């Protein structure tokens, strides 16, 4: 019986070899595919098992993880929920991560290479590996003022430190409570998300109006045209330009706001044309300068229609679109036609002018901290471009100060502080009788020593028609005023 016994022994060896080969195939060849399979909850549990880092402002967390007795160990909490939702995003079991929770996930989860040295240390000390913290540049006073001012409307506020590019405020409404999207109860998460789904053309709270959406800027774009004119060397703020009552653009006639006259049809100084936001003057100025100069200046401010940038949240590109002819150029010069800006871009225009013509790259993350709060990476301000010379920047500042002091931006005036700004009221659709116009304001303060640059956008915030109380100056300028005041009060300025 020994011959078959030997064969049985060899067969058993073969069977076990088959087992071992199969286990090798699963645990080596298919290992990463199985580990990363979306249905594999292990990676998720591992993630929730680890203390995720906090998102902090000046040491105070706006997103933090707290230990629970749940199956998922750590629960994400957002102490000021909706106020910082446009920045933090949410950490959702069901819908994944968004906002900073997504783009800074490597740091927060602890897998960022900058944290690795410490994690090796954790191995030896036996501590649970914890995530790093992300410290933001936001100013709580600015953020709260902006979110308060935007209550009830769809809109955005972006506030920058013009000298560094540090983002002081990043508001977007309607907002939501990220805590409810980050709970451990999938049914509750789904129900809450369902309650957020917009009805009747309203904006989705999960879309970011400041970074992810772009709109016609209206007269705010006149700043770019004015900059192109001044930078060309042929103009000063007092150079007079034609300001007719109507301007023929191709097949249609361009009027001024409410059909008003700028200077009785006579030529007008550039500074005055900007102060009252004369459409015909700037349309004609754009045509006179030519597409090339306008486009070059727009690109220098960052409006290049390419890929946008990350700060580290992604900012979609702003664009002036294709300009077919002079008629289109005239429309574009007053921020209509295919010109589309993000609120971030509008703030960057003011910030560049405020910073003597140098545009600093906006950034939101001040520093990355190890779990023990030691700083392991500090963001250095970076220059993005120099759209205008210091001299031209000074002239633009003078003109923008006039807008607030004497012109359409009067509602942004603050006692004792010189505010520079520009309003915008963008027609939506082809006729003025359609949806209410978007209202804009962009500016900075104090004009002589700029500390904060602000852009305010309110979607369909204006009123069509003839009342004259629904412009960027009426709707958006007061918001900018509140935000600037909040900043100056908090920092003892003004």
């Amino acid at each position, binding site marked *: *019986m020994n011959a*078959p*016994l030997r064969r049985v*022994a060899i067969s058993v060896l073969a069977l076990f070899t088959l*087992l071992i080969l*199969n286990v090798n195939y699963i645990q080596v060849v*298919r290992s990463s595919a199985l580990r990363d399979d979306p249905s594999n909850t*292990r990676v998720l549990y591992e993630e929730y098992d680890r203390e995720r880092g906090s998102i902090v402002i000046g040491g105070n967390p706006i997103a933090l993880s707290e230990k629970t007795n749940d*199956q998922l160990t750590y629960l994400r909490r957002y102490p000021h929920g909706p106020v910082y939702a446009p920045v933090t995003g949410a950490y959702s079991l069901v819908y994944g991560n968004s906002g900073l929770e997504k783009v800074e996930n490597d740091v927060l989860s602890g897998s960022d290479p900058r944290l690795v040295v410490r994690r090796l240390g954790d191995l030896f000390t036996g501590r649970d590996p914890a995530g790093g913290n992300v410290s933001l540049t936001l100013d709580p006073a600015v953020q709260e003022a902006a979110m308060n001012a935007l209550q009830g409307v769809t809109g955005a506020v972006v506030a920058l430190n013009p000298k560094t590019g540090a983002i002081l405020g990043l508001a977007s409404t309607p907002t939501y409570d990220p805590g409810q999207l980050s709970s451990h109860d999938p049914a509750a998460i789904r129900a809450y998300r369902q309650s957020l789904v917009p009805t009747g053309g309203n904006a989705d709270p999960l879309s970011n109006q400041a970074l992810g959406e772009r709109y016609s800027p209206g007269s705010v774009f006149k700043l770019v045209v004015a900059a192109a004119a001044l930078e060309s060397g042929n103009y000063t703020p007092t150079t007079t330009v034609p300001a007719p009552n109507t301007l023929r653009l191709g097949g249609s006639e361009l009027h001024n706001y409410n059909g008003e006259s700028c200077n009785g049809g006579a030529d007008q100084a550039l500074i005055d044309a900007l102060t009252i936001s004369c459409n015909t003057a700037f349309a004609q100025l754009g045509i006179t300068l030519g597409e090339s100069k306008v486009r070059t200046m727009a690109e220098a401010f960052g409006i290049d229609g390419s890929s946008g940038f990350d700060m580290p949240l992604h900012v979609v590109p702003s664009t002036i679109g294709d300009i077919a002819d002079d008629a289109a150029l005239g429309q574009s010069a007053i921020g209509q036609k295919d010109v589309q800006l993000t609120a971030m871009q509008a703030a960057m225009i003011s910030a560049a002018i405020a910073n003597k013509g140098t545009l600093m790259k906006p950034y939101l993350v001040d520093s990355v901290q190890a779990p023990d709060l030691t700083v392991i990476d500090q963001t250095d301000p970076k220059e993005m471009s120099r759209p205008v010379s210091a001299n031209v920047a000074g002239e633009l500042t003078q003109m923008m100060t006039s807008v607030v002091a004497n012109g359409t931006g009067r509602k942004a005036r603050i006692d004792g502080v010189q505010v520079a700004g520009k309003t915008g009221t963008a027609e939506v659709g082809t006729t003025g009788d359609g949806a209410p116009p978007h209202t804009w304001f962009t500016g900075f303060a104090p004009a002589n020593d700029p500390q904060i640059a602000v852009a305010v956008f309110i979607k369909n915030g204006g009123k069509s028609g003839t009342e004259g109380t629904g412009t960027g100056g009426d709707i958006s300028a007061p918001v900018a005023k509140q935000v600037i005041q909040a900043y100056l009060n908090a920092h003892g300025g003004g």
Partner: protein
Amino acid sequence: MTSPTSSGPTTDPRTPPAGTTSPKRRGTELALLGFAVLITLAAQCIVDLTVTGSLRPELATFGIWFTALWVVAHVVVRRFAPYADPLLLPCVAMLVGLGLVMIHRLDIAGAQIGGGQTSQDAPVQLLWATIGLVLFVAVLLVVRDHRLLSRFAYTLALVGLVLLAIPALLPASISEVYGAKLWIRVAGFSIQPGEFAKICLIIFFAAYLVDKRDVLALASRRVLRLELPRGRDLGPVLLAWFASILVLVFERDLGSSLLLFGIFVVMLYVATERASWLVIGLILFAGGAFVAYKIFGHVRVRVDTWLDPFAYKNTGGYQIVQSLFGLGTGGLFGAGLGGGRPDQVPVAKSDFIASAIGEELGLFGLVAVIVIYLILVERGLRTSLVVRDGFGKLLAAGLAFAVAWQVFVVLGGVTGLLPLTGLTTPFLAYGGSSLVANFGLVALLVRISDAARRPATPAATPQPKLVDAPTEVVKP
């Protein structure tokens, strides 16, 4: 081969001449047992330190108890089976120890998820291991010569069949767990009588085949180089096949059916040396399996989920997909004891304990476990090669192959190589009947290996009475 010769030690080249002392290797066994116990205790400490950060006071009790088990086992073997194979017991100790570690680890995971509600299965398993050891000792004490077992062959066959049939006859409320009617559940205890039936039937097969192998080996004609048996000799294999089908139909368990039939066919092959029996067995099995696939929904579900588990990942394939996730996440080195999420796999303590090991100890750990099984099985088969009587040969081969076949079917199922079955992983998995029965199985192997390695003195060899099983000349 089949020509009977008088039993004489000098004619067997494997047997040392009478009078010389062959090494007993009990010291080796003790050292290896110590090693297995040490690994088990270290692993227990690692689990506690990783998961809770501190050592439980119960760990001392566990350590003493667990060590005592193997000390007792060793002393009994030293006294009552001094020539036994020194590797069998350490392999078992390592597997049982590792199983206890994983079950304890899953206890903790369960307690964490249940929010403090603890299910303490590891102490229960330790108790079962103790009962298993009692059976081990009892078998060694009672069965002083394995050949005596052949006297009870037909009684054991009856007992085996009754044990096998009980769950099928009981109402489903008592006998059904996860769709398979394999259990007797009384007063909180779950017993899988099939595990004991398996051993009884192997003993019967061995006795029966030794008796009838000359007849069964008779060939009638050759077809395609195969010597086919006579038609009337097909009776036993058809009977075994039919019994397996009954198990499949009435207990709805592919695993037990496959296990019993596989063991019988292989023992038939070993007894008769006719490969044709393997072919016939394979054809019968394939036919039965095909018909079962066509007729029974539960078989079809098992096979379909085996072919594409991810298509059924939220239904029938959930277990196997979770198991694959665990194995894949474990990778080469594993998450470390206490570092993974083996609790994600349903019934990880019993059916899927191998995937828990693969997740936390990685490929290296799982392959090590497979190799320990391989050593256990090959030592069993080696015992079968060396032992001098036909009954002992067949019995050892049957027992060893039973372990091998069961491990292959279970691990193959857990790793997606074969359809899932309801079989348990011998020694590792949580479950009293399986553990106790397998202790009995190993006791028999130890007993036979003692006889195999014992220096033969003609006077000490009792003449087998009932079974006229002569020792044979081993062909070179």
